[in-house]
């Protein structure tokens, strides 16, 4: 997915993009570490959201909706 900049720009990339790349990369991790870090992280982050969280949020949402309807009703009365 991550197209390497070097591949995209080729070895003869002009000076401006070279400079830009330097400043970008100074914030990036060496990819030997960075790639493994992302693999480690995505191993969990790529899993589908467990049902327990979906139903939890559904419950919270419903409880909130009921609370709201109640207080709206009280205001009218």
């Amino acid at each position, binding site marked *: 997915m991550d197209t390497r900049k070097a591949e995209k720009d080729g070895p003869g990339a002009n000076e401006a993009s070279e400079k830009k790349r330097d400043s970008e990369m*100074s914030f990036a991790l060496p990819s030997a570490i960075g790639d493994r870090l992302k693999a480690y992280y995505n*191993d969990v982050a790529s899993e589908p959201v467990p049902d327990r969280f979906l139903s939890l949020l559904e419950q919270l949402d419903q409880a909130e909706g009921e609370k709201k309807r109640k207080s709206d009703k009280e205001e009218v009365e």
Partner: protein
Amino acid sequence: MTTETDFRRELIQVIPNLRAFAASLAGSFDRADDLVQETLVKAWDKQHTFQPGTNLKAWLFTILRNEFYTQMRKKGREVQDVDGVHAMQLAGHPEQQGHLDLQDFRKALDMLPDDQREALILIGASGFSYEEAADICHCAVGTIKSRVSRARTRIGQILEIEGDGEYGPDSIASQIIGVAPAA
């Protein structure tokens, strides 16, 4: 009434990231998901304090991290990793069986002090800026930078020491040389 609120939909989108961050903090998947659950409930209760248009992901990470350290303080050292228990528990995750490369990396990551590991994850994997990471960790931007830098150096050393060449200085050095020939 089954309409999903925007807030709920946005929360759901961040859950995968929250789980990954929680796992890196907590060291076991059960504990990580408990942490995520606490975070979602807390976030729901105080959603009125969230300013729409600001970074929901960073807001949720901050809640999760605070929750984690609050629990750590309450439970004392129990939550802390003892002799690689952290790594063993994570390695037990079924999705990760057979990923030797990943397990080695996980062990290396595990040898880092908590603050360095956290900074490395936030910057290198969660995709936060140094400024956002500093906000999440309640520290200065410079502190995050130096933690990431120390973590990176340390991981490089660990993998090199334990390395089978694959992680060794060559692959890392070639990246650096390839990127910054003038330096």
